[in-house]
C-alpha cells in the first residue's frame, strides 16, 4: 500500500464523482424538501440560489485551489495546507478544524448510515410492520418505535439489546457498514474511494430515477381526489413570499447549501491535494456542485414530499419532519400505503445507504492523510489507528443514545458551528492572506473554464461578510449557540459530549505540533514562504 503522498486520482471523472459523492448525502433527499416547504416553498429557491452563488460555489473553488496548491507543496492535510496558504502557525492550528469536522461528523454519521442499511434489510424481509389500514397516528407510532430500536433513544445502551432479533438492532448493519468503510479506505484513494464512487454515483442516479418515476405515476385514490401528484408538487413548490422577510429562511438556505455541498468541511481540500498541477479545478468544482444540486433539487425536490402528500395529504404537516423524522418515521408510513411499497422502500434505503457511504468514506480520508503526514507511519498503520479512533467515537455515540443528546450535541457544535468557522477561516486565508488575485490565478492553472471576475469580489468581500452574518446569527439565535451553551450546564450528556470533542481537538493539536516538527526537519515550506514548484 502506498503512502498518502504517493497517491493520485485515477481520472478527472473519478475525482469529480468522489467529491460529488462526498456532498450528496441524506440531506439532499430528506432535509432539503422539508427546509424548502417550511421556508417559503418555491420562494425558498431565491435565498437558496443566492447562497449557492455567494457561498457554495465560490468557497468550493477556493477549497479546490487551496488543496491542489498544498498538494504541490507535498501536503494533504488541512492543518498543513492551511499553514502554507495562511503563512503561519495560526492558520495551521485553525486548520485542525478541517480534520476535526469530518472525523467528528463520522462518529455519528456512520450510525445513521447503518440505520439506512438496517431499514433496507427490514424491507427486504417483509417491511417494518406497519399496517396500512390502521389509523395514521398508529402507523406513525409503529414507525417511530422501529426507529427507536435502531437509534436506542429510549435509554443508554439500548442498541446493545438483542432480544428483539438481529434485524431490529443497529449492531449487524453497523458492523457491515464499518467493514465496508474500512475496506474501501484501506484500498486507497484510487482503488477504493474513486472506484466505489464511480459505480455508486451512477447507481444512485438510476435508483433515484426509478423512485421518481414511481412517485410521479402514483394513482390518485378516488376517495381523496385532491391528494394527487400535482397537488403534492404544489405543496413543495408553491411560493410563500412572506417567509422571505424572515432571516431564518435565509439562514436555513445558507445552512442547507453549506452542509449539502460539504463546503468548509475539510474534505475538498484533502481530495484536491492529490491533483496534479494542471488538473482542472474550476470545471471540476462546478461539476461536483452541479451533481449535488441535481440530486438535491431535481430528485429530493420532486420525490420526498410529493410521495408523502399523495398518501398522507395535509396530515403530513402534523407528522415528524426534519431529516430523521421524514426519513425514518414518516416515509415508512408512505411505503406501507404504496403499491410495491416494500420493494420501493428497500430501493430507497439502499439509495440512501449509497449516498451516506460515499459521504462517510470522505470523512475518514482527511484524518487518515493527516495521521500519515503528521506521524510518518505507513498507510496500513494509519488506517488501523484512524479506525480505532473512529470506533471509539462511534461506540461513544452509540452507547450514550438516550434522547440522542450526544449525537445532537456533536452535530450542533461540529456539524453546524465549526463548519461555518472553518469556511470563514478558509475564505479569509484564500481571499486576504494568500491574495485573491494570486488565488484566482492558481485556480486558473489548467482550468477548463474561467471563473467570472465578479467572483474575485464575492470571495474577498461577500462570502466572508455572509459567513460573519451567519456566525452572528448563531450567537444571537436563542435556538443555536445560547441554547447549546445553556445545555452544557443542565445536561450531563451534552457536557460530556463537548468534553469528548475537546479531547479530540487536543489530540489533533498535539499531532499537528508533532507534524510541524517533522515537516520542518524534512525541509518543507511549512509557512508557505516560497512559490509552489511543479
Amino acid at each position, binding site marked *: 500500500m502506498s503512502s498518502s503522498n504517493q497517491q493520485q486520482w485515477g481520472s478527472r471523472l473519478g475525482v469529480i464523482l468522489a467529491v460529488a459523492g462526498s456532498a450528496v448525502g441524506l440531506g439532499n433527499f430528506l432535509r432539503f424538501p422539508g427546509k424548502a416547504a417550511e421556508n417559503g416553498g418555491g420562494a425558498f429557491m431565491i435565498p437558496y440560489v443566492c447562497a449557492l452563488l455567494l457561498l457554495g460555489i465560490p468557497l468550493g473553488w477556493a477549497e479546490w485551489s487551496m488543496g491542489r496548491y498544498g498538494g504541490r507543496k507535498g501536503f494533504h492535510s488541512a492543518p498543513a495546507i492551511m499553514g502554507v496558504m495562511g503563512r503561519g502557525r495560526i492558520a495551521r492550528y485553525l486548520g485542525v478544524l478541517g480534520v476535526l469536522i469530518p472525523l467528528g461528523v463520522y462518529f455519528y454519521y456512520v450510525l445513521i448510515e447503518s440505520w439506512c442499511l438496517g431499514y433496507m434489510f427490514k424491507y427486504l424481509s417483509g417491511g417494518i410492520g406497519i399496517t396500512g389500514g390502521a389509523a395514521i397516528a398508529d402507523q406513525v407510532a409503529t414507525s417511530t418505535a422501529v426507529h427507536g430500536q435502531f437509534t436506542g433513544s429510549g435509554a443508554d445502551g439500548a442498541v446493545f439489546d438483542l432480544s428483539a432479533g438481529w434485524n431490529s438492532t443497529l449492531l449487524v448493519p453497523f458492523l457491515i457498514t464499518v467493514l465496508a468503510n474500512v475496506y474501501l479506505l484501506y484500498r486507497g484513494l484510487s482503488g477504493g474511494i474513486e472506484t466505489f464512487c464511480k459505480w455508486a454515483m451512477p447507481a444512485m442516479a438510476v435508483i433515484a430515477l426509478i423512485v421518481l418515476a414511481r412517485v410521479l405515476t402514483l394513482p390518485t385514490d378516488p376517495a381523496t381526489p385532491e391528494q394527487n401528484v400535482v397537488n403534492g408538487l404544489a405543496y413543495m413548490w408553491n411560493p410563500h413570499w412572506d417567509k422571505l422577510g424572515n432571516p431564518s429562511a435565509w439562514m436555513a438556505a445558507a445552512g442547507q447549501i453549506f452542509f449539502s455541498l460539504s463546503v468548509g468541511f475539510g474534505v475538498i481540500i484533502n481530495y484536491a491535494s492529490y491533483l496534479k498541477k494542471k488538473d482542472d479545478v474550476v470545471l471540476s468544482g462546478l461539476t461536483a456542485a452541479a451533481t449535488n444540486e441535481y440530486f438535491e*433539487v431535481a430528485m429530493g425536490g420532486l420525490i420526498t414530499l410529493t410521495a408523502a402528500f399523495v398518501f398522507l395529504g395535509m396530515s403530513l404537516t402534523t407528522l415528524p419532519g426534519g431529516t430523521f423524522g421524514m426519513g425514518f418515521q414518516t416515509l415508512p408510513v408512505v411505503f406501507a400505503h404504496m403499491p410495491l411499497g416494500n420493494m420501493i422502500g428497500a430501493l430507497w434505503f439502499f439509495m440512501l445507504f449509497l449516498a451516506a457511504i460515499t459521504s462517510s468514506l470522505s470523512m475518514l480520508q482527511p484524518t487518515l492523510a493527516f495521521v500519515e503526514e503528521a*506521524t510518518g507511519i505507513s498507510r496500513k498503520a494509519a488506517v488501523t489507528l484512524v479506525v480505532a479512533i473512529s470506533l471509539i467515537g462511534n461506540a461513544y455515540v452509540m452507547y450514550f443514545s438516550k434522547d440522542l443528546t450526544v*449525537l445532537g450535541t456533536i452535530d450542533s457544535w461540529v456539524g453546524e458551528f465549526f463548519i461555518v468557522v472553518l469556511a470563514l477561516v478558509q475564505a479569509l486565508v484564500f481571499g486576504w492572506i494568500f491574495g485573491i488575485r494570486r488565488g484566482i490565478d492558481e485556480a486558473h492553472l*489548467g482550468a477548463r473554464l474561467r471563473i467570472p471576475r465578479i467572483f474575485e469580489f464575492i470571495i474577498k468581500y461577500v462570502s466572508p461578510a455572509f459567513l460573519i452574518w451567519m456566525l452572528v446569527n448563531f450567537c444571537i439565535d436563542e435556538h443555536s449557540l445560547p441554547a447549546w451553551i445553556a445545555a452544557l450546564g443542565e445536561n450531563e450528556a451534552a457536557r460530556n459530549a463537548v468534553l469528548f470533542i475537546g479531547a479530540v481537538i487536543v489530540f489533533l493539536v498535539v499531532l499537528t505540533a508533532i507534524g510541524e516538527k517533522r515537516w520542518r526537519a524534512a525541509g518543507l515550506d511549512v509557512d508557505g514562504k516560497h512559490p509552489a514548484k511543479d
Partner: protein
Amino acid sequence: MHMLLVALQAPAAPQPAPIVPMTPIGWLFLIASVGSVVFLVLWCFYRVLTAPPDDHVVKPPDALGG
C-alpha cells in the same frame, strides 16, 4: 449535509392546513429550478467528458515518506 436533529421532535401542528392547488408561479419555480440544475449538470458533464485528456503528469514531492 447535517443539522440532523432539527425538528426531530418538532411540535405538531394542531390542524392540517387546507390543500392549495398548483399555481402558475409554482409551476414556474418548479420548472425553472429543476430545469436549471438538469441543464447545468448535463452541460458540466458534457464539458468534462469531451475535454482532451491531461498531458501533464506531475507527481507531488514525496519528502515525508511514510
